[in-house]
């Protein structure tokens, strides 16, 4: 338990952004019965202020989180929440708190450590809202989880289909309307109703799917996967290039495989990794390798591997992925994000990657295949040299 309450009242709670998950997190935060101050929408400034006050080569989610906190404090928030998790994330809170205090902000912080179990955190929340009961927290948790599932299902459908819309922006329009309605839903039935209604609306959008469409899976580190601003909207960019995009790291999936089921899940991933992993690599590393191997077997055209610069679990995974790519001539595009990553550079690489995948499809057996994989996976050929 790690909670320090702010000196000033009333409490104004805030938390960092990650994709559209501020919707279910807001539902949870409402149980604290205080005003919620969402950080402003992410902009370049978020990253700039975050990076300015962060250690130089800490991974980029730290910088975004810190930027969110600073912008939320500027908006009047005085109680920040940082959730723990695997890897470095678990240690973010303490360092961020020290940085923000040195900057002179007056605030409190709830640092949730040691996994996702509600039982372990209820004490922290009760200090903010003494009226909170375990029963009520549990109910809210279940609702938030349902909301998260609706969000993930709809966004999964959008990812797979938005690339083929006849009219530009049709999917985005429905998606935005869905987010607005979901944000106000506060009971199970409404959430289910919104989900199925919008799924119907999405299915009704006219699309044109070409015969030779590209199917690409996205794997990697969870934050850059789930926060589109941080990955420079890579999924939308792929959709613009007529790609069916698949992603498996979502909060619903993480919750499903957390706690007691975690070890079994890892064992299964390792068993299905084609011997490219024998021991868990840390955080999402094992999943990145295993999913890539499985997608290759399912006939996907290629995989995008995303990570923050220097992310060690994913660097571990890259050793396996580069060998896999080399041995099976399977195209993998590796993208690292730091504060300097440019949108133009990303677009150029995506263009080249998609062109190469199309060439492979049109001329199977062509030597261009191997060459393409090699240039796009720098380092992949090295260990045979």
């Amino acid at each position, binding site marked *: 338990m790690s909670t320090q309450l702010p000196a000033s009242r009333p409490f104004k709670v805030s938390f960092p952004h990650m994709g559209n998950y501020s919707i279910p997190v807001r539902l949870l935060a409402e149980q604290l019965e205080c005003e919620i101050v969402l950080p402003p929408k992410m902009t370049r400034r978020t990253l700039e202020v975050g990076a300015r006050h962060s250690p130089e080569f800490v991974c980029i989610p730290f910088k975004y989180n810190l930027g969110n906190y600073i912008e939320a404090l500027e908006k009047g928030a005085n109680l920040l929440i940082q959730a723990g998790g695997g890897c470095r994330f678990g240690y973010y809170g303490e360092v961020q708190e020290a940085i923000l205090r040195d900057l002179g902000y007056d605030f409190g912080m709830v640092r949730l450590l040691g996994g996702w179990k509600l039982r372990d955190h209820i004490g922290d929340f009760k200090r903010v809202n003494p009226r909170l009961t375990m029963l009520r927290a549990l109910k809210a948790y279940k609702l938030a989880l349902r909301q998260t599932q609706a969000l993930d299902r709809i966004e999964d459908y959008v990812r797979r289909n938005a690339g083929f819309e006849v009219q530009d922006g049709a999917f985005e329009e429905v998606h935005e309307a869905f987010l607005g309605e979901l944000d106000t839903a506060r009971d199970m039935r409404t959430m289910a109703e919104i989900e199925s209604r919008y799924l119907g609306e999405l299915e009704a959008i006219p699309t044109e799917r070409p015969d030779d469409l590209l199917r690409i899976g996205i794997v990697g580190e969870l934050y850059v996967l789930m926060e589109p601003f941080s990955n420079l909207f890579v999924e939308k960019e792929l959709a613009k290039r007529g790609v069916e995009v698949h992603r498996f790291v979502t909060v619903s999936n993480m919750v499903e495989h957390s706690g007691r089921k975690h070890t079994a899940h890892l064992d299964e991933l390792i068993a299905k990794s084609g011997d490219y992993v024998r*021991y868990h690599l840390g955080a999402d590393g094992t999943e990145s390798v295993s999913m890539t191997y499985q997608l290759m077997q399912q006939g996907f055209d290629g995989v995008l591997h995303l990570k923050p610069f220097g992310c060690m679990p994913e660097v571990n995974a890259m050793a396996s992925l580069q060998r896999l790519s080399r041995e099976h001539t399977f195209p993998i595009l590796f993208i690292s994000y730091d504060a300097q990553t440019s949108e133009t550079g990303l677009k150029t690489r995506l263009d080249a990657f998609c062109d190469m995948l199309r060439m492979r499809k049109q001329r199977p057996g062509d030597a261009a295949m191997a060459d393409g994989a090699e240039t796009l996976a720098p380092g992949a050929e090295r260990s045979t040299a």
Partner: protein
Amino acid sequence: MHATVGLPRSLLFHKYHVLWETFFGALDVETVTSPQSNRAILARGIELAVDETCVPVKLFLGHVDALRDKADYILVPRIVTLAKDETACVKFLGAYDVARNSVPGIRLLEYNVDVKNGIRQRPELCRVGETFEPNRRKVRRAYDHAASEHLRYTARLDEQQEEVLARPGMKVLVVGHAYNLYDEMLGKPIVDFLGKNGVEVVSSEFHDTAKARTLAKLVSKDIPWTYNKELLGALESYRERVDGIIFLVTFPCGPDSLMTELCMRRVKGTPSIMLVLDELQSEAGLRTRLESFIDLIEAGKRRAAVDGAR
């Protein structure tokens, strides 16, 4: 038939070499250690590693490759947790798979330590020993002997450290992982340079792990990494007795970047600098920084002496 086991002179070698050498020695297994880090080893490591890998892992891969045709097996431990509620840096989780996938044509021997999940060092290392010695009791005896030698060795290191601290003259604490501090290419030039300039070097090696964990809490409540806790333990127990602190960090180390950030903000009163080492470092640049750091400490001491005389 005499099998040989290769020990890469990198990462955990600098912590556990006495344990490993004694253990295999007691089983009549010859050990071959890779040479001190040099330019060729680093160059080969850079070639084998993913670009963004930290320098110590690049060196590690270079050392593994250097043993390729020199030993029948190469020992690579996989360390996850050494105690509940803490974890090793992620590179130690992946070291085995990374070496296996990056260096062609090698045969690895691995042992896995994950105390939180009930996998302990003794049975795991004994399993490795049984590759060479079918008599299980003999293997267990070899392990117990090696473990006590290891403890004796680390206790002696702690004693030596106290001797250094008792000496007069300028003392500087170098906070850095053993695999950086004792590496010929990374920490060694710095330690040597300090020594040549008349500075006593106190290393952050701290082997009383229980005490280290308690002391670490004074600086950082939440820090999860075992070996960083040891560094913080050393920092807390030595910092009042030294004249300056150097944080030695390799690029782009995640745990150290966060830990050092916190230390620089919380440890006040003793002059400190952070040195970041990468594979492209220039010695001249490092020397300039070290020289000015020493000057700064001396100036501070002179000022303190003048103030004291008043």
